[in-house]
């Protein structure tokens, strides 16, 4: 770190003051005048056709302004980029909980009540595909590409030691604390959507395309986002339906999903059945890796969680087969969910590695170190940087791994069985095109900067790291840098998805700083021995204002490298031997993710991912009743997000790393990798504690008694 740099320091979040005072404005916090309230109503069957909608009583209910169903909804472009269908374009029902209409009324209470008064009849839902356990055998090869090298089955047949097991992870829901919500407001042809969006420009174009209007007529305003975790990346029908409701009511409309509606409105992480095969020599050299994922998708669209991704990169193995099978079902479209594929996939892979280590009587860390690949085992490309070995070694030291008893079930303290487990993870590091505008003003020597780009901060720390990046890039104190994001009127930017946010945004802002400094130097016409800062130039040139725009691109040769963040996770669990309740007492995540722009927000991202992993390992599961295809666990009382007491001491260590191949700033992204490997480490620790190998998540008390 260079002297006096603010980047890399644990600056408190610059948006913190607004957040602790309740002043940060989320989608429905805007004081829009003359607001009406929408309430969605949904199908109660999983497939079939609507034969009748009786809304006569509802129409007459006090306060009702309009009721919109497929019978009177405007024609929308169903291929406009919104996910999951449900745009009120016809009577066909494709999943239970599909939106079938909206009531708009003067108040929220009136809209919700009127929606209850509507009676809907359906026909022909007998053939609904709702039972994954039964349908899994009918799964067919998915579009997700297969990786095949060598011959896994032959290697399995002849190897000294093998593992051949099936691991299962349930449907999970993102459940950001802020349910998806929109205020839609028309002024003539111009539509403003206050809407939580992880990808600001994506929300703009998909809304515009769906509504058949020009993107420049749609403005997305989303400076604060109450979490997203993938569910607010691609947008869903409710975004366009809010606009439709506002048009038809001829008033601004507030349309928020209820928590119950979140289960079948905005995607999910699907139920995965993962068949893992590992073959190794007696010394623990991997010979083969098979990773087949069987899952489900929507009845008319395909998304497959890439559970095999970690298996592609973590270990050197000559024979591999990584592939996917998928079956369409009458369930809402699955989508990206924090650490898509890597989180669930690493649970299977890293559980299998632990099983292998146990069979080999080998330390699980030693097994991993013995299979460290010199280059990407799947693509053959060199690593942009890879410090997984350091993650494991530093982690083992900090965690006290040597004190672990390798024999399961032997570490007993009072009512508790104590266990320790390790698991690794990875997540691709990518930079996307992103633009940024920097505006400098000089008010009697006080130089201030405004940085503008249509980036998103869903709690990741975007505001703060961009202020730090710009402060250093311009030579200004951070308090004189103003960050404007979350508005589609700003220069287009990448999204806060797939861990590309920090990389793309920070590089674009950094490039913009370089550009504006160079432009100011040229404007001055002077020679400089030491490159001056933009702030100094503004002052010396007595400019009252100056601005520039940078359209940043990834490094030209970025594709020549395999770039990933890596981690090693260490868990200590205490399992109550009477009740089977598990407490994660200690958890350590050691992460090699390139340059860390802000250790405070970065640590928060990692421990947040760890909490997600704890939920995946121990508590979270969405259950469908196949008779109706509906979610039975449709509230926060039934779907268990971890609570404060579920979370013990979490520690994060970052490995010093500056990856100049991945991107100019050497930043790799941390939002996703924090969850990867966590469930595996916990499940492995539970095995070490109890001797029970649970291959089906979540590991609830009933599975340990």
């Amino acid at each position, binding site marked *: 770190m260079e002297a006096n740099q603010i980047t890399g320091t644990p600056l408190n979040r610059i948006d913190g003051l607004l957040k602790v005072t309740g002043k940060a404005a989320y989608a429905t916090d805007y004081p829009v005048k003359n607001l009406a309230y929408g309430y969605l109503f949904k199908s*109660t069957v999983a497939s079939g056709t609507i034969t009748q909608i009786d809304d006569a009583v509802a129409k007459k209910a*006090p306060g009702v302004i309009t009721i919109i169903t497929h019978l009177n909804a405007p024609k929308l472009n169903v291929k406009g980029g919104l996910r999951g269908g449900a745009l009120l374009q016809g009577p066909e029902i494709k999943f239970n909980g599909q939106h079938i209409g909206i009531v708009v009324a003067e108040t929220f*209470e009136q809209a*919700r*009540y009127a929606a*209850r008064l509507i009676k809907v009849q359906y026909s022909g839902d007998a053939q609904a595909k709702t039972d994954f356990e039964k349908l899994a055998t009918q799964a067919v090869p998915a579009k997700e590409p297969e990786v095949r090298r060598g011959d896994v089955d032959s290697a399995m047949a002849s190897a000294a030691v093998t593992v051949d097991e099936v691991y299962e992870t349930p449907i999970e829901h993102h459940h950001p604390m802020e349910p998806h919500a929109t205020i839609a407001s028309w002024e003539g042809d111009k539509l403003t959507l206050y809407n939580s969006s992880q990808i600001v420009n994506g929300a703009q174009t998909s809304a515009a395309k769906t509504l058949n209007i020009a993107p420049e007529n749609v403005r997305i305003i989303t400076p604060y986002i109450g979490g997203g975790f993938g569910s607010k990346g691609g947008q869903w029908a409710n975004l366009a339906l809010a606009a439709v409701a506002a048009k038809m009511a001829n008033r601004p409309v507030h349309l928020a999903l209820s928590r*119950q509606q979140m289960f079948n409105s905005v995607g999910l992480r699907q139920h995965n059945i993962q068949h893992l095969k590992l073959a190794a020599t007696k010394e623990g050299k991997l010979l083969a890796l098979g990773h087949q994922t069987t899952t489900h998708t929507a009845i008319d669209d395909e998304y497959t969680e890439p559970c095999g991704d970690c298996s592609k990169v973590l270990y050197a193995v000559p024979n591999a087969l990584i592939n996917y099978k998928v079956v369409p079902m009458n369930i809402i479209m699955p989508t990206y969910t924090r650490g898509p594929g890597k989180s669930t996939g690493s649970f299977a892979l890293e559980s299998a590695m632990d099983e292998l280590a146990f069979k080999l009587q080998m330390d699980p860390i030693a097994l991993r170190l013995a299979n460290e690949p010199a280059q990407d085992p799947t693509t053959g490309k060199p690593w942009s940087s890879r410090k997984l070995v350091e993650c494991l070694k530093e982690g083992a030291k900090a965690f006290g791994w040597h004190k672990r008893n390798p024999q399961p079930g032997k570490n007993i303290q009072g009512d508790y069985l104590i266990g320790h487990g390790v698991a690794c993870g990875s997540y691709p590091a990518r930079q996307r095109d992103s633009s940024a505008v920097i505006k400098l003003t000089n008010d009697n020597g006080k130089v201030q900067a405004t940085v503008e780009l249509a980036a998103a901060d869903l709690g990741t720390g975007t505001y703060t790291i961009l202020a730090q990046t710009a402060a250093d890039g311009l030579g200004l104190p951070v308090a004189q840098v103003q960050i404007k994001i979350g508005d589609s009127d700003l220069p287009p930017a990448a999204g806060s998805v797939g861990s590309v946010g920090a990389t793309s945004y920070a590089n674009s802002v950094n490039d913009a700083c370089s550009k504006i400094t160079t432009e100011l130097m040229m404007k001055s016409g002077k020679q400089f021995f030491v490159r001056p800062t933009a702030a100094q130039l503004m002052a010396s040139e007595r400019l009252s204002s100056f601005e520039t725009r940078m359209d940043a691109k990834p490094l030209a040769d970025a594709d020549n490298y395999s770039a990933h963040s890596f981690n090693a996770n260490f868990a200590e669990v205490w399992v109550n031997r*009477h*009740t*089977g*309740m598990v*407490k994660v007492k200690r958890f350590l995540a050691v992460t090699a993710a390139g340059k860390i722009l802000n250790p405070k927000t970065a640590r928060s991202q990692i421990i947040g991912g760890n909490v997600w992993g704890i939920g995946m390992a*121990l*508590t979270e599961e969405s*259950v469908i*009743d196949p*008779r*109706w295809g*509906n979610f*039975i*666990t*449709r*509230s926060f*009382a*039934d779907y*268990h997000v*971890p*609570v*404060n*007491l*579920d979370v013990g001491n979490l520690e994060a260590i970052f490995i010093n790393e500056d990856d100049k191949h991945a991107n100019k700033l050497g930043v790799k992204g941390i939002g996703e990798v924090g969850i990867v490997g966590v469930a595996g480490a916990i499940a492995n620790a539970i095995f070490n504690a109890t001797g029970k190998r649970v291959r089906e998540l*979540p590991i*609830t*008390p*009933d599975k340990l*008694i």
Partner: protein
Amino acid sequence: MRPFKYTRATTLPSAIKELSGNAQSRILAGGTNLLDLMKEDVERPEALIDITHLPHSAVKSLSQGAAKSGVLLDALGKNSETANHLLIRSQYPMLSQAILAGASAQIRNMATNGGNLLQRTRCPYFYDVAMPCNKRTPGSGCGALEGFNRMHAVFGWSDKCIAVHPSDMAVALAALDAKVLAQNEAGQQRRLTFDEFFRLPGDAPEKDNNLQHGDLITGIELPASNFADHSYYAKVRDRSSYAFALVSVAAGLQLNGKQISDVRVAMGGVAHKPWRALTAEKMLKGKEATEANFKAAAKAEMAAAKPHEYNKFKIELGERAIALALTNALNYGS
């Protein structure tokens, strides 16, 4: 939520009068469950009678002089106040523990003692008006019977309903032989044992208890307890806090040396009402307080359990929870 008329009652008798005058009216006390169900359209009252603000929230000792004779909990006392009341913490620690095991601090600050007993089941089929449920809509069938019944009853269920009562507090109250005080329009006071108050679903699961419309719970009476030195509330759940019980057990022991002179065991999460483990109690009375005896009694109690497809684990878990609660009652007290 259906529109409703709101009335702020001035006294308990006037609230009862108002209540009796309209079969579609309901009392609003803590509201933590009623409002929740009204938002789901499960409860659809046309009038709410607000008694939240009425000064009827004391915890009173019924003792006269030196004779211990119990405690009266006024119905409108908040769960948090009850749990933290010195009388309750010192004399009925199992009740404090049970209350504190339930819900969250915020909800315990709102929920009342009377309302706690009147909580309706958390069965997801009951909560979702699109699903069949005999408790919500008599005659519509039981969605849970052949459905996802992991959280459901293993004792005392009928083919009409397999729901469980969600309260933790009521489990401890059942163990303590508490009595429910109810008053009607005529001013008659009734004192109901838990057996008389709660029901099993039978053919009329729509009725959670034996109160009539127009009855108002005014208090809960706790008899003098000999279990304060050895009692415990154990709760097993899917996450460590803010979750309903898979199985919970309130246990109290009265010891004469090593011998059990009296014992109480009640279970939550296993039946339509707080379930008194009478078989276990009977087996333990007079026996030595040992882990082996606790386990044998637990096994005997759970032998009568009839689980469903997804809750077979409750038999073993019930055995373990009973033994654990008794062991902790013996070793640590509350």
